[in-house]
């Protein structure tokens, strides 16, 4: 039992439970943005069971890991950050500022904000293309 003293459990203490990793730097922010579909839309369609042969997901995971290992290009990261700031009603700075970190660390639903469009043919190349197209647009905006 989690330790508490008040009848309504309002003072429940999570002595031994682990805490979510706080988002403080670019790497953990990238993970957050990827997880919720801001860097690469997520296929949230299927129920994922442990050990299930979700070959479809492996493709994505491969891509996913590549992106993170090599590090998302700073442009991609900034675009994704701006999109997150926009939908969260934050000033769109493109910077991982305190307000953005605070918003990322809020309690939230685990369903991604950006999901893959199931009606489009799904190929990793296709998705990458769509991402790069996006980037061009944002650059144009910047210029």
């Amino acid at each position: 039992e989690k330790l508490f003293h008040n009848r309504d459990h309002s003072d429940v203490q999570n002595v031994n439970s682990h805490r979510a990793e706080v988002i403080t730097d670019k790497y953990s922010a990238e993970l957050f943005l990827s997880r919720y579909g801001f860097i690469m839309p997520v296929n949230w369609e299927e129920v994922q069971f442990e050990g299930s042969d979700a070959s479809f997901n492996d493709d994505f995971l491969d891509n996913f890991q590549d992106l993170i290992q090599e590090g998302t290009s700073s442009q991609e990261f900034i675009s994704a950050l701006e999109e997150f700031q926009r939908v969260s009603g934050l000033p769109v700075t493109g910077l991982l500022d305190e307000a953005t970190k605070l918003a990322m660390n809020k309690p939230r639903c685990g369903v991604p904000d950006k999901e893959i469009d199931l009606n489009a043919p799904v190929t990793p190349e296709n998705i990458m293309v769509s991402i790069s197209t996006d980037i061009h647009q944002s650059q144009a905006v910047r210029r």
Partner: protein
Amino acid sequence: RKRHLATLVSKNRRRRDLSETGYMAFSKRVLKWRLIGEGYSSQLSVEDQRYIFRLAFRMWSEVSPLEFVEDTRSPLEDVDIRLGFGTGRHLGCNQRFDGTGQEFAHAWFLGDIHFDDDEHFTGPNAGSGISLLKVAVHEIGHVLGLPHIYRPGSVMQPSYLPQESGFEVDWMDRKAIQHLYGGCKGRFNTVFDWIRKERTPYGEVVIRFNTYFLRDGWYWLYENRKNRTRFGDPVALQIGWRGIPMDGVDACVHVWSRKRDAVYFFKGTQFWRYDNANDQVFRQDPEGHRYPRLISEGFPGVVSPIDTAFYDRRQSHIYFFKNTLVYAFDVEANSLARGFPKNIRDVFPAVESGDHPDGNIDAAYFSYTHNAIFLLKGTRFWQVVGSHERWRRPFLPRNGLLPHKEVDQHWFDICNVHPTALRL
């Protein structure tokens, strides 16, 4: 690999389909849910958890044609929506929870909802922790097919906002879910404005009214200014109107004139008079009449059972409707008005030929909000031409019926809930 993918995806969609909108939606209207046994939270009693989920499902049912029923018996694969709590790696799901903070729950399209039991979930209005009701309404929204909606006030916002008072599904969210499942349609037994007199702190008497829609043994208070029913409706009839038949009435008539002020409920061959002051039917009214009374006794010449009735203040006549006939009853003379009964087409002629309910109507309702009479039948209504309309267009027939419209496009979100969810 593409073919494999296509078969993989199509196989998984068997339970749900893309609606015309392209979003995933259930094709069934009654959905079963269950809090699965190995997924109870360690923080709230099981009864509290089940009550909160029942309320959460009911809140979606109050704004959509969907009904939800808790099913603790059927084989699990027959249950449409399964809910459970877990921490870290949980319930065979490979989306591991992250512990306290950030992700507090997620939902899968096939109808599984998981809650992170490392979060501090609390009951409604606890004022602290994370409201399980709020999270449950949000995740059920996903299961029903709604994505994240960033609009302030939406229950589908991805980030948790501390509980404001009066957490409800707002207008835009209602439109979003009705975009997937359609609006709430259905017949009504009767519709009426209930008038009451109140005294202001300065001793003045003011007159207020509320609009009520009755269907079988349920009723909704309709808030005209907010274009929706009262939060938490429908309610069982016997809770709000003591003494009238629990399975519904045929009509409610308020005879209100300089000399009279009496509310009657009609059902079958009998009628009751309602005692507003004591909020129940009279056993014996101030005139010494004992209730229920026979309609033929109280309103000689009127044949019962009736379809419906309303009181027309202009002539102090009660119009009773039965099949294709209309009986106008002169209250002052206590007899049928001359020439009645008449065919409904003669009393209420169609303004547009062919556009007429042709009798057997469900409800006749004089609305103080619209200052107009409406005849309801099925999912449609016809508005009776009023004096103002006739002043503008004198060629319109007296008491003519304007072309019909849909009830649910005029009075919004009058939705059923599953009978097991009625008492919450």
